[in-house]
C-alpha cells in the first residue's frame, strides 16, 4: 500500500480479524533511559600490613542513535601502608630520613626496610567517545586525568577500527599520549645521590615529569560461531623522570655485604647507613604482544590469554591466564581464574651497591624490577537479576616470590632473606544496572 499512513489502521483491522477484539488495547511502550552504570568496590590487601588499597569506580555509559557511545569513568582510591624501599635487611636497626626530609624513621634489625608509611588518595576521570565513521569504520577517542598528592596524569588516546570480511575481522590502530607530573613529598631526589640528614634538601629538585607514547595495532578475528581470537601488538615509549622517588639502595661492604654505617652531623637526625636514591634510565621502550582466545562450549565460555613483554631495560615478562565461565542455572555463573606471571630482572637491578666500586650509570633495588614470578588464583560469581541488572563478587589470592641472582649477593647477605614473598588478597563487588 503506497499510502504509509494507512498501514497502521489496515494492520490493526486485519489483526483484530485474526485475534478477535480481545487484544485491542493500545500499546504502552517507551525506550528506557539508555544510561547504563557499572560500579565496583575493590579491596586489595597485602599481608604483613603492607599496602592496602580500597577503590571505588563508577562507569557510566550512554548509548546514542547510530551506535555512538559515551563512556565516563570516575575512580577514587585510598592507598595506605608501605612497600619494600630497596634497602637491605641488616643485623642492626637502621634509621632513614623520611621522604619529606623533615624526620627519620627506624627499621628493626633483621627486617626488610619499608618505605615510610604513607596515605594517598587518588581521583581519576576518563571520558571516552566512540562512533561509526563511514560504514565499516569505528572511531574512538578519549581523555584521562588523574591526580594524587604527588602525581598528576593527563592522557589522550585515539583509535580507528575497520571491519573486513563480512565483519568477521576487525583491525584496530591506536595512539595514546600521556604526560605525568611528579611532585614527590620533599622533592624529587637526584638519581644516585646519597640520602642526607634531616633538613638538608640540597639533592632534591622540586618536581619532574615524564611522557609516554603508546602505539597499538590489533586484529580481532571471528574464527567460528563459538571462537574469537584477538591479537594485539603494542609499543610504548616513556621518557623523562622514570624513577620511583622513594626507592633507595644500600651501599655495602664488598666482603661482608653489610651496610656501611654513617653518623649524622652533630645535633641533627639522619640516616645511620649510606643509602643512594635509585637512578633509572630516562627512557624506556617496551614491546608487547598479547593474544586472547575466547571459546564457547555451548553455554560455558573458556578464555585463555598470553602476553609477552620485552623492554630495553632488560626485562622480559610472560603472563598466562585462563578463565572459565560456567553457568549455574539460567541466570548465574561462576568463573574460576588462574594467572601465572614471570619476569626477568632489569639490567641495572642491584640488591645493593659496593662501597668503593665504580658507581654504575643506573641502579635500582626496587623489587618490581627484579626477577620474580607470581600466581593469582581467583573465583568470581555473577548473577543476573530479572530486571537485566547484574551483580558479581570476586576474590583473588596473589602470591609473588622474588629471586636474587646468587652472583649479586655478598657475604652475610646470603644468610638473610632479602626479598620476602608478597601475598595479597583482592576482593571485588560489582553491580551493573541500567536506568
Amino acid at each position, binding site marked *: 500500500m503506497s499510502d504509509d*499512513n494507512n498501514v497502521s489502521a489496515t494492520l490493526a483491522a486485519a489483526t483484530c480479524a485474526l*485475534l478477535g477484539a480481545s*487484544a485491542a488495547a493500545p500499546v504502552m*511502550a517507551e*525506550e528506557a533511559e539508555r544510561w547504563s552504570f557499572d560500579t565496583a568496590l575493590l579491596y586489595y590487601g597485602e599481608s604483613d600490613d603492607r599496602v592496602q588499597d580500597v577503590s571505588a569506580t563508577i562507569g557510566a555509559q550512554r548509548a546514542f542513535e547510530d551506535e555512538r557511545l559515551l563512556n565516563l569513568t570516575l575512580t577514587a582510591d585510598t592507598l595506605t601502608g608501605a612497600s619494600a624501599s630497596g634497602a637491605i635487611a641488616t643485623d642492626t636497626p637502621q634509621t632513614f630520613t623520611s621522604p619529606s626530609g623533615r624526620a627519620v624513621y627506624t627499621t628493626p634489625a633483621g627486617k626488610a626496610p619499608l618505605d615510610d608509611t604513607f596515605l594517598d588518595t587518588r581521583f581519576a576521570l576518563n571520558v571516552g567517545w566512540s562512533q561509526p565513521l563511514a560504514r565499516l569504520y569505528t572511531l574512538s577517542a578519549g581523555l584521562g586525568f588523574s591526580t594524587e598528592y604527588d602525581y598528576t596524569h593527563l592522557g589522550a588516546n585515539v583509535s580507528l577500527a575497520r571491519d573486513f570480511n563480512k565483519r568477521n575481522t576487525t583491525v584496530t590502530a591506536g595512539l595514546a599520549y600521556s604526560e605525568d607530573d611528579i611532585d614527590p613529598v620533599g622533592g624529587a631526589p637526584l638519581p644516585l645521590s646519597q640520602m642526607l640528614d634531616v633538613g638538608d634538601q640540597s639533592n632534591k629538585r622540586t618536581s619532574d615529569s615524564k611522557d609516554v607514547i603508546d602505539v597499538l595495532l590489533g586484529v580481532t578475528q571471528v574464527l567460528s560461531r563459538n571462537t574469537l581470537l584477538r591479537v594485539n601488538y603494542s609499543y610504548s615509549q616513556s621518557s623523562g623522570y622514570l624513577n620511583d622517588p622513594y626507592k633507595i639502595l644500600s651501599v655495602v661492604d664488598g666482603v661482608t655485604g653489610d651496610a656501611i654505617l654513617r653518623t649524622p652531623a652533630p645535633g641533627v637526625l639522619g640516616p645511620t647507613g649510606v643509602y643512594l636514591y635509585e637512578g633509572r634510565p630516562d627512557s624506556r621502550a617496551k614491546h608487547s604482544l598479547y593474544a586472547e582466545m575466547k571459546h564457547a562450549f555451548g553455554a560455558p565460555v573458556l578464555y585463555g590469554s598470553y602476553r609477552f613483554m620485552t623492554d630495553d631495560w632488560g626485562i622480559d615478562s610472560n603472563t598466562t591466564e585462563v578463565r572459565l565461565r560456567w553457568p549455574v542455572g539460567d541466570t548465574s555463573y561462576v568463573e574460576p581464574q588462574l594467572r601465572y606471571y614471570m619476569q626477568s630482572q632489569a639490567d641495572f637491578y642491584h640488591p645493593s651497591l659496593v662501597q668503593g666500586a665504580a658507581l654504575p650509570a643506573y641502579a635500582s633495588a626496587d623489587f618490581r624490577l627484579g626477577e620474580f614470578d607470581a600466581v593469582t588464583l581467583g573465583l568470581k560469581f555473577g548473577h543476573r537479576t530479572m530486571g537485566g541488572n547484574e551483580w558479581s563478587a570476586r576474590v583473588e589470592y596473589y602470591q609473588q616470590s622474588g629471586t636474587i641472582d646468587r652472583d649479586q649477593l655478598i657475604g652475610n647477605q646470603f644468610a638473610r632473606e632479602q626479598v620476602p614473598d608478597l601475598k595479597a588478597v583482592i576482593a571485588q563487588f560489582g553491580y551493573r544496572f541500567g536506568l
Partner: protein
Amino acid sequence: MSETPPQSASITLGREAGHWVGRFMAMASPCEVLIEEAPAALARQIVDVAAGCAWRIERKFSRYRSDSVVHMIGSNAGRAVVLDEESAALIDFAATLTKMSEGRFDITSGVLRKAWTFDGGSVVPTQEQVDALMTRVGWHKVQWRKPVLQLQPGMQIDLGGIGKEYAVDLAAARIEEISPGSSCLVNFGGDVAVRYPRRDGQPWRVGIEATARAGAAVHVVHLSRGGLATSGDSRRFVLHQGRRYSHIIDALTGWPVPDAPHSITVAADTCTQAGTLTTLAMLRGRESESFLRASGAKYWIQG
C-alpha cells in the same frame, strides 16, 4: 481446535527475583513466561497453557511436519482444499499483508529458499534458477475464496513469517482467559506480549539484543502493555557484488532485499502487529526507517 496435552517434562518452572519463570523450547526458539505473584499451581497452569499454544501452532503450521496444515496444502497443490477456521483466518491475514506490501510479502515465496542460503556467504543463485522458482511464486496465481484454497501445482505456502508472533498473542489471550488480570510477560524467542504492567505499576523491562558487532548499543524498552517483535539476524545474510542482502526475500523479484538494516524492533498493540511491521519495514530495504516513521509505530533500528 483441540489443545495439545502439555509435554510437562520439557517445561521448567522456577522462582527468580520474586517472579515465576517458566521455560520451554518451541518453534526452534527458547520461550519463557514470567509471572508475578501467583500460587505455584496457577503459575504451572499458566506456563502449561502458553507452552500448549506454542506447541500446537508449531505442529499445525510447521513446514517441516508431514501432519501440518501447511504440508497438507502443499501436497494438495492443484486441488481445492477446505481450511479450518483458524487456518483460514491466518491465510486471510497473510493476503492482507501481500496487498499492503504490493506483493513483496508473499506466503508462496518459501520455495525460493531452495536457491538462497543465508549463511553469511556470497554464493548467489543464477537468475535462471531464480526465474525457474519464480514460476511457482505469486499470491495472484492462487485461488482463495475463504475457506477454500487452491494453489497451482508445484506451489507451497509458508506461514513462518507470522506464526510465532501469532502464537505469542494467542498465548497471552489464553492466559487472560484462565487467570484474568494476572501480570505476566510472554516471550517466544524475542517476540513479546504483555497485557498488564507489573504489580507495582512499573513497566516490564525488555532488552533488545545488540547485533553481533562489538560495542553496539543495547536498548531496554519499558513495556506496560502491547507487543514487541524483532526481525533481523546479523548472521543471516548474503553478500553479492559488495552489497549486503538481508534474509528476507522480496517475492516480486525473487531476490533478498538489499541494504536492509541488521535489525528492526517494533512495539505495537499486539505482537502480531509488531512482527508484521518489522517484516514490512525490512522489505523496504533502505527505506525501512521512513516506512516505520510514517507508520507511527515505535521502532528501534540497528543499521
